[in-house]
């Protein structure tokens, strides 16, 4: 018996629900040396802005209990160069999702316009939530009105699948999710990193050059699961869940909580084979528990009695 792992995210059919998380997989080439990228449900590339960005000053990484803080600051080669690199991924025959960032609505729009003609770019993930850009970025993610305007603008500019990546650093995520839905997004993804910091007690200064960074990894998994549960209740759109996934068991938790697909970030750094291992593990879980398709378990934990 084989199980059907495919899921639908907007206009995309993914052959399985597993993709790398943006910023954790470069433009794919590094991990292509470990496994065949065509095994992935999709590939998600680094956050892309219109012009090249150098990123934040180092140190950019600090290890924390069961997690890491990063303050990369969206270092990327800019949309033109990104387009070339994305084109090189066409051969894998899987959807390429481009994470888009910017300091203004116009910049998001320009990035999309630049990539619109690149066939290999199958979908856009609109990053309104990177905690590492000071100007604009953060407020985009926290105001439903701004999200509505931004997504409406981008919706008018593309027929490709539009995914909005939400920030977890908010009091109530549901109005933000609904604003994206109302403006025509095809899917939501969450969570981006939690804002955090760490201090070097010998040098008596922050460990990160940027002072604050974004927390990711297993430590944030319970928070991410809660947001996925909550948002998949609040909207009809499919949700791509992420935050601390390191194993097939973790991925299944997200699917049971209502995610239609999952993304894996930090765990790639620890285990470069984590994505294919999680794909195989989800299939094994479904088989052992007599499910025929991944669709059958999406949101299933909401129907069960708690406790």
């Amino acid at each position, binding site marked *: 018996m084989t199980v059907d792992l495919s899921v639908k995210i907007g206009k995309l059919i993914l052959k399985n629900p597993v993709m790398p998380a943006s*910023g*954790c*997989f*470069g433009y794919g080439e*590094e*991990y292509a*040396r*470990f496994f065949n990228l065509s095994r992935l449900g999709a590939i998600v590339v*680094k956050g892309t802005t219109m012009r090249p960005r*150098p*990123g934040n*000053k*180092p*140190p*950019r*990484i*600090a*290890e924390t*209990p*069961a*997690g*890491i803080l*990063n303050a*990369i600051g969206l*270092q990327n080669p800019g949309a033109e160069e990104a387009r070339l690199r994305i084109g090189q991924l066409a051969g894998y025959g899987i959807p390429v999702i481009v994470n888009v960032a910017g300091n203004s609505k116009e910049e998001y729009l320009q990035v999309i316009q630049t990539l619109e003609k690149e066939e290999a770019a199958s979908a856009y993930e609109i990053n309104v939530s990177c905690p590492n850009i000071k100007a604009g970025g953060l407020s985009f993610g926290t105001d439903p009105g701004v999200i509505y305007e931004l997504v409406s603008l981008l919706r008018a500019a593309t027929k490709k699948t539009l995914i909005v990546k939400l920030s977890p650093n908010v009091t109530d995520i549901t109005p933000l999710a609904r604003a994206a839905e109302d403006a025509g997004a095809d899917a939501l993804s969450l969570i981006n990193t939690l804002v955090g910091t760490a201090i070097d007690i010998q040098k008596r200064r922050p460990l990160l050059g940027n002072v604050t960074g974004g927390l990711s*990894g*297993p*430590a944030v998994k319970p928070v991410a699961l809660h947001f996925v549960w909550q948002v998949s209740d609040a909207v009809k759109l499919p949700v791509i869940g992420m935050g601390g996934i*390191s194993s097939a068991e973790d991925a299944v938790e997200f699917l049971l909580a209502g995610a239609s697909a999952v993304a894996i970030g*930090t765990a*790639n*750094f*620890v*285990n*470069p*084979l984590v994505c294919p291992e999680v794909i195989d593990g989800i299939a094994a879980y479904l088989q052992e528990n007599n499910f025929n398709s991944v669709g059958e378990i999406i949101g299933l934990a909401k129907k069960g009695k708690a406790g």
Partner: protein
Amino acid sequence: MRKQAMEIVQQEKVGKDIYRLTLAGGLAAVPGQFVQVGVSSTADPLLKRPFSIHYCNGSRLVLLYQVTGRGTNLLAAKKEGEILEVTGPLGRGFPLPEEGRAVVVAGGMGAAPLYYLLHALKSAGRDVTFLYGARTAAALVLQEQYRSLVRHYAAATDDGSFGRQGPVTELLQEELSRRPGVVFACGPEPMLRGAAAIAAGFNSRCFVSLEARMACGVGACLGCVIPGADGRYRRVCADGPVFAAEEVFPA
């Protein structure tokens, strides 16, 4: 480049807080490359630790490491027979010179990757000088092994407890004034900058191996960058850890 489960064959203490770890399994690497080693099977500590390849061949991988924090403490507690997850080989190593003399300079634990480099230079029939510096005599571990690989050997310690008293870069200054050669250096950053400046003074090429806090170790996360001499960032894990001195240190 791959992820392997490797068995600990030997864990030897070779100095104060310094261990030599031998793992079973082959790795095809060039000197100066490194591996990422899992120190825990749980989520804390989360990241693998980067260690230079001290030596490797078709059947074993040897690391030389110092206990400095949580991860290396856990590593030192591991016993023969235990299994470690190892990713590698990673990064760009030292370019072996086509011809001519080589001067290899180590500062403290910076000696770790240079052992494998000395092996390669010896196999290539190069004339090699090894200059070994450390804070104190006790930190000059495995001196006999290093010495046996080279024609010229000298040591220096900050406290004068062994060899010349003073920074190892003074030995480099003298060595280059005696005979020219390509310089290969690994050690604390100030020492590397010093070595690079001295080499530049003699118009010698100089390659340095750098360190940075890493997450992925493969070039994907952009976490380990350092500014290059041109002000643009380099990834230590993928563009290095070995760099031509002029690429990373402004003249």
